[in-house]
């Protein structure tokens, strides 16, 4: 899988320097124009073909000048501060770096992203947030492998403890070592933490937008160091039928989007409301087509996990060898009633059939109510003759002897267990805490009590950043005893 006849990439930074006024015009080109300018032939225009260039990072240091030398990523702190503080909704920002294995706990997390940039000018990562929503997932993307940029807020200016339901900030921590490490996202990356202070009395809308844009801009700026360098590794990703004798497998990515603060963006557009399931090339995820604005930290899929979606990576790993990875359908849960849930499930099945899938692997962001949409999707897929393998997180109580799920389709005959979310574990104290001095959870185990995040505590999956999904990703499951 190589790319023929490629125009040599023009570093975005040089383009920006040379034609600052034209940048908008480039990003503003609508997608068919972009394709006309694209060097690939017509056949390849239709199927996404992305070269992912990985630059491995083994250490991160703050410096006066940005750079990348022998795996050491240098951050220009002043430049990044200027970038973040150019938004007057943010009053202060300093960096903290955390390494896997350290006795460090990161709290007050708003989102995490992997620094990525597209060196060619046609499209930018995080489309719609940076530039217009030009189609991504093709061409070339540079990534700083082994890192994450994590936004934290000294005071989380989201309604909290005021009875505001789903629009409540849910604490979800990252433990860089100990038993929590295998239960949260971004615990095995070098974490560049943007510790931000926000202006007081911001609306939640402003807070949310400022936090996300700061993270996106910093991720983009940090990734610029790759632009004039050779990558350590290149991988070409392209979906489709490689071998007609292999089974076709699709990925169904059900996200959570229930409104402001509990939201997922697709090309910068919220997915709640009248959103109907749609096809998204898996490579578009790599380029930040799906961004998490979901502050329900325990059950969310953060942006880093969509950029590095483990289901997409696993299906690509077997692509052309054991199966044809034919594509992805994105859907959401929490439709208003049974009819709209069934409708959504049927649309997913129809799109999977259009992808000519024989089987589908499904993942779920959300819980409870969204589980009904999820099961409706499984039912529709199986009834369309498509093998459905949903991954679920289980309830079951601390002892694991209560009901594991609230809704179960009898068609769900091949379910993967992602572990029980309310089984308890003991966490050790941590020497260093990044992000804030006190944390507070909203569930029944430690209802609404603030405490010092250095201290040890008894945790369930609700306590961790992307806690539900991370049990699954790290390889936990429930076994019957």
């Amino acid at each position, binding site marked *: 899988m190589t790319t023929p006849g490629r125009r040599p990439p023009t570093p975005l930074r040089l383009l920006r320097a040379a034609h600052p006024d034209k940048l908008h015009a480039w990003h503003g080109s609508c997608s068919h124009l972009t394709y006309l300018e694209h060097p690939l032939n017509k056949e390849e225009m239709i199927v996404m073909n992305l070269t992912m260039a990985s630059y491995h990072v083994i250490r991160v240091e703050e410096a006066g000048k940005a750079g990348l030398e022998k795996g050491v990523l240098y951050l220009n702190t002043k430049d990044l501060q200027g970038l973040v503080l150019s938004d007057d909704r943010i009053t202060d920002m300093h960096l903290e770096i955390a390494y896997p294995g350290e006795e460090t706990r990161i709290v007050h997390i708003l989102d995490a992203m992997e620094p990525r940039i597209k060196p060619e000018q046609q499209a930018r990562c995080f489309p719609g947030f940076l530039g217009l929503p030009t189609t991504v997932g093709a061409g070339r993307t540079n990534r700083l492998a082994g890192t994450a940029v994590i936004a934290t807020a000294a005071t989380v200016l989201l309604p909290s403890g005021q009875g505001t*339901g*789903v629009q*409540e900030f849910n604490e979800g921590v990252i433990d860089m070592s100990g038993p929590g490490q295998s239960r949260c996202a971004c615990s095995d990356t070098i974490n560049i933490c943007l510790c931000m202070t926000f202006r007081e009395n911001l609306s939640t809308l402003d807070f949310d937008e400022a936090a996300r844009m700061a993270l996106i801009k910093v991720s983009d700026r940090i990734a610029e160091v790759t632009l004039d360098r050779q990558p350590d590794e290149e991988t070409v990703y392209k979906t489709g039928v490689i071998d007609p004798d292999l089974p076709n497998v699709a990925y169904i990515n059900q996200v959570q989007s229930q409104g402001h603060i509990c939201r997922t963006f697709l090309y910068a557009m919220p997915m709640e409301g009248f959103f109907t399931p749609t096809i998204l090339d898996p490579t578009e995820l790599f380029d930040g087509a799906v961004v998490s604005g979901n502050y329900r930290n325990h059950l969310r899929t953060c942006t880093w996990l969509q950029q590095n979606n483990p289901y997409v990576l696993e299906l690509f790993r077997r692509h052309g060898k054991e199966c044809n990875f034919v594509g992805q359908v994105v859907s959401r849960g929490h439709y208003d009633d049974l009819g709209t849930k069934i409708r959504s499930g049927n649309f997913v099945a129809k799109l999977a059939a259009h992808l000519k899938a024989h089987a589908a*692997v499904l993942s779920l962001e959300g819980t409870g109510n969204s589980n009904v949409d999820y099961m409706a999707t499984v039912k529709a897929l199986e009834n369309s003759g498509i093998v459905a*393998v949903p991954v679920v997180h289980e309830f079951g109580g601390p002892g694991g*002897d*209560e009901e594991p799920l609230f809704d179960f389709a009898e068609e769900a005959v091949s379910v993967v267990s992602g572990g029980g979310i309310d089984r308890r574990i003991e966490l050790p104290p941590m020497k260093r805490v990044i992000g804030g001095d006190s944390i507070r959870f909203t569930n029944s185990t430690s209802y609404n009590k603030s405490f010092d995040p250095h201290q040890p505590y008894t945790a369930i999956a609700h306590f961790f950043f992307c806690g539900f999904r991370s049990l699954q990703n790290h390889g936990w499951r429930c*076994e019957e005893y």
Partner: protein
Amino acid sequence: MIKVIHYMNQFGAGFGSEDKADMALGSFDGPKGAGIAFQGFFGDRAVIVKTIYAGDNYANEFKEDFLNEAMEIIRAVKPDVLLAGPAFNSGRYGLACGSLLKRAKEEFGVPGVAGFGPDNPGIAEYKKDCYGILTGAAANSMRQAIAPMAGLALKLGGGETPGPARQEGYIPRGIRLNVYTGKSSAVRATEMALARVAGQKWETELPRVVYDKVAPPAPLADLSKATIALVSEGGVVPLGNPDHMETNNSTKWRPYALSGDELTPGAFEVRHGGYLTQDVTKCPDRMVPYDALRTLEKQGIIGKAHPEMLSASGSMANLSTMQRLGREMGIYLKQKAVDAVLLTAT
């Protein structure tokens, strides 16, 4: 040396069959009947110090006497583990084995292993309270039952916690615990999908969950004489949340007195983590429609609007916890002579 007590019924202990089913509890020193085969498996790793026996009728009809007498022996001997049966498909025998192992575990924390045939009612009743080994239907499958029962007893008697049911071979007890597989869900899901498409064997990691079906009660004879109460999982609580009602994963419900003709805006807040609550905060009647209920009362369509709401948050709650809440609410409302409830949810 691991100390074992073995329980058998009148037949297993060699006294006779149905004609001896009424015999009271007694005991021997050392193994007897199937116990001799267990002891053979143990060798010098464990010793059956006592054999307890009782008639099946006695064990079931005089259950408390049976259990108390058995516990006295267990208290004196202090065994590390108990063996019971195998009972095969004998129903009363199976129930006796299960009840004895359950009580011993509760009183002394002594674990136990029982042998049950596939149709033994002891499985459904006691699978959570002991380790059951699935045996054949009748005593002619005794030989096959010895090694798995004795093997598991050795493990338990030695203080080990047995692994998952499908590895250790005992009957699943309905307890699901987290284990680390070393393979992400993405890998396992893809492998399962490919196995199914290829027509190979696969094993679901979560067997189908079947839920209770609740039969609706008879309709109200006369709505105009009925007292109607409002029950909601929408998390509406008095301002300040005096009972510390939880937002998610909640464990309790509370009754709150209502007065006037509506839920006064500003007097309530919402503790619920699962929906956009602003509209309900602004107008709590839209979750708990007391205004509508009072109107119906004034119009004579219903007899009486019960002046309380029963409130809980259903967000990310456990089903069995919610079943408990429902039962408790039912008992409470019966005491208040409520005839029907209007149940509003999110």
